């Protein structure tokens, strides 16, 4: 009776273990399928020229996505420049002023902002920037993306800085270091890895955004360096070409998808490395 009971338990334990392993693998499967499908469809489009050439007209084989690649890079750099300073300041403010009326209001506003659908952000920026300025532009696209980055960065900054123990702050204040210098030179460096991770994650989120760019950056068949002019981006190119009736353009869209996924993956890996390497232990 007793022995049977134990072997029954061992079997139950084993079944449960296999069940968990199977469940874990099967939840990773969709990702593998997605990667496989995209790579198998897009890899043929990718060549050296893919990164340096412009898209070719329908009917011609080959061509590249240089306009979209450069557009995406310029959009990311510009939107980061717009979003990072105020977002980090906001995060510092929220972490330092934990319980005032104003900070609670702002904190809730940031949360709501994070929930605004990206297409709505696109329309708003269209109304606020594109219409008054009279033209689509890279800048307006970057503003839309920056609006999406801001809550992500400020939230992660706030959370990172909140984790820094109060006694670190006090140690600096007690040395006669003024409050603002303490924030800049002690608190921020202690939270640097968390803040950088938040920034990178926000970039990887917006790198694939299409909706906010539809009525702002708009798209451009050529390489554009001028932020007052419209620009293409990887997701815009995928959106436009995948919806076209041309096979050659479908191939470009698949190739661009690989590049986009590779960028997002790379950003994720970088953020993991940063948060591991630069993590400050208290």
């Amino acid at each position, binding site marked *: 009776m007793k022995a049977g009971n134990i072997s029954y338990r061992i079997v139950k334990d084993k079944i449960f273990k296999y069940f968990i392993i199977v469940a874990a693998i099967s939840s990773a499967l969709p990702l593998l399928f997605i990667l496989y499908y995209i790579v198998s469809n897009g890899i043929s489009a990718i060549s050296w020229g893919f990164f340096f050439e412009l898209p070719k007209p329908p009917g011609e084989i080959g061509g590249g996505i240089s306009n979209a690649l450069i557009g995406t890079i310029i959009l990311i750099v510009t939107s980061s420049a717009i979003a990072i300073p105020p977002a980090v300041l906001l995060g510092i403010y929220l972490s330092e002023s934990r319980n005032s009326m104003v900070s609670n209001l702002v904190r809730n506003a940031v949360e709501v902002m994070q929930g605004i659908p990206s297409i709505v952000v696109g329309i708003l920026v269209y109304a606020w920037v594109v219409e008054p300025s009279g033209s689509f532009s890279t800048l307006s696209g970057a503003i839309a993306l920056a609006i999406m980055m801001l809550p992500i960065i400020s939230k992660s900054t706030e959370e990172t800085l909140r984790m820094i123990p109060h006694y670190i702050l006090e140690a600096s204040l007690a*040395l006669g270091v003024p409050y603002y210098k303490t924030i800049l*030179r002690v608190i921020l460096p202690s939270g640097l890895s968390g803040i950088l991770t938040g920034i990178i994650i926000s970039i990887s989120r917006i790198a694939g955004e299409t909706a906010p760019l539809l009525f702002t950056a708009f798209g451009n068949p050529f390489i554009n360096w001028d932020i007052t002019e419209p620009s293409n981006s990887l997701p815009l190119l995928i959106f436009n070409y995948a919806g076209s009736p041309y096979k050659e353009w479908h191939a470009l869209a698949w190739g661009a998808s690989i590049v986009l996924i590779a960028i997002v993956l790379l950003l994720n890996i970088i953020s993991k490395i940063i948060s591991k390497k630069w993590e400050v232990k208290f």
Partner: protein
Amino acid sequence: MGSKVLKIDGLNVYYDQSHILKDINLSFAENTVTAIMGPSGCGKTTLIRTINRMHEFTHGARTEGSIKLYGKDLHQIDPILVRRKVGMVFQKPNPFPTMSIYDNVIAGYKLNGFKLSKIEKNSIVEGSLVKAALWDEVKDNLYKKGAFLSGGQQQRLCIARALAMNPEILLFDEPTSALDPIATDRIEQLINELKAGLTIVLVTHNIAQAARVSDYTAFLYLGELIEFGTTKKMFTTPKNKKTEEYLNGKFG
């Protein structure tokens, strides 16, 4: 002993509505160690935080009365300067986790943006670490992060960091309550050596520690200064009944 470095007159401290310290009159003589004792919550930390004006960072904290540093009203002096003249060592060792041992020692200069030559820096770092009795243990690892040190070493690093600013007064808030007996002994020895160069105020829960290292003792109870005098006198013939009960371990 020597002249009075710091004189507290009619000090009242409030946190919002609650009256925490009540009419405290107390002074600290140069080159002495004054122990501040009393049961938990009686206001010891509050008292020493008003001495380096750290209470100003606490929301709702308010003081009345006068505190004079060498005869000058503390509130007439720039708070930044006050905190350089009145150093503080905390209960939990708190070296800066992002900085090396070297940078931790000169953190007060670096963070304030004072420019020092390499030679000046080296001599401040070595001098402070020697005074804090840590030099021999860390001299080969000056560029490693301070967080790798043991708790007792970290606390001595924090003492070195405070000494580097050349303070007139050093406030210790239960500096050994997170340390083992050996590390505690080391800090006590150190306090004994340091008083030749400055004035020390030591908050402690440990009655034996107060007896070992202090020249004067102040006994606080429910925000009032019950008794203040030489440690010897207070420990042998306390004037107040409450003091006697506390020293005999009746409460605390």
